C-alpha cells in the first residue's frame, strides 16, 4: 500500500456524512453545491498533488461555470488520452449538478 491511498479518503469522517455535503468546513453553503464537492473530490482523487487543486466557480443564472487549476504534473492525467478523463469528470459533475437543478460547465485551465 502507498500512503497516496489516503488522498481520496480525506473527506471521510464525522461531520461529512451524506447530506451535509453542500457546506464547507465552517458550515457555509458552498457555491456550486453538489457539483462542486463532486468536482473537488474527483480532481483531488486523481491528482498527485491534491492540495494544488484550485476550483473557481462562477454562477450565472442556472449554469455554474467551473475553472480547474492543477499542478502542471497532474494536467496529463486530469485530461487523459483523447480527453477521456476530462470528459468523464464533466459527465459526473453534470449528474451531481442535476441533483441541485444546476447546469454545469467545467474547464481545465493550463496556467
Amino acid at each position, binding site marked *: 500500500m502507498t500512503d497516496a491511498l489516503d488522498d*481520496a479518503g480525506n473527506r471521510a469522517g464525522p461531520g461529512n456524512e451524506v447530506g451535509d455535503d453542500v457546506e464547507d468546513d465552517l458550515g457555509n453553503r458552498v457555491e456550486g453545491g*453538489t457539483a462542486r464537492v463532486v468536482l473537488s473530490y474527483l480532481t483531488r482523487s486523481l491528482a498527485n498533488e491534491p492540495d494544488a487543486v484550485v476550483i473557481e466557480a462562477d454562477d450565472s443564472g442556472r449554469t455554474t461555470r467551473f475553472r480547474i487549476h492543477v499542478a502542471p504534473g497532474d494536467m496529463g492525467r486530469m485530461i487523459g488520452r483523447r480527453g477521456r478523463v476530462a470528459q*468523464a469528470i464533466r*459527465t459526473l459533475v453534470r*449528474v451531481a449538478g442535476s441533483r441541485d437543478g444546476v447546469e454545469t460547465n467545467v474547464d481545465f485551465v493550463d496556467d
Partner: protein
Amino acid sequence: MTEMSLEEQGQAAQTFVEGLLREMGMDATISLRMVDDTTAEVAVDGEGLGVLVGPRGATLSALQELTRTVVQKHTGGHSERILVDVAGYRARRAEALQRFTQQVAAEVLSSGTERALEPMSAADRKVVHDAVNEIDGVVTRSEGEEPRRYIVLSPSADAPQADGSGADES
C-alpha cells in the same frame, strides 16, 4: 512505487467509489468481488441509481474510466482489470452481448464467411472474445483504431467445413 495486488487495487477502487457516492449524497451498498485472477469488480447497488448509469450507460462508462485512472495513480501506471457495475447494468448488458455474439458465431459457422461487428469499447470486446473462445470453429480478431476498433468473427482454419469439402476454397 510498491507493487499492488489485484485485491489492493480493487480496494482502492472501492474506496474511491464509496467516497464519490458520499459526495453525491447517494445511499448505496458498494461491494468488491474478485471475478477471476486478473479482474476485480466494484458493484454499486441500491435504489435510484439510474442517474449513475445514464443514457446507454454513458455515466457508468465515465465512472469506470475515472475509477481506473485513480487506481492507475496508486499503482504508478498499469492496473489490473477493474470493473465497475451499477445496479447490475453491466452484467445484464454483458449477457445480452453474449447472446448476440453466440448468434453471430452460429451464422459464421453455418455460412463459412466472416462477420465484422460494430465498433465497441475494450470492455465489450472482451465479452465478445470470451464468448467466442468457448465456441469451436470460430475465432475473433480486432481491427481498426480506437475508438472505432471492432471485432471480426471468422471460421477458424481447422474448422470442419459445413459441406464436408475439406480445404477446398471456392
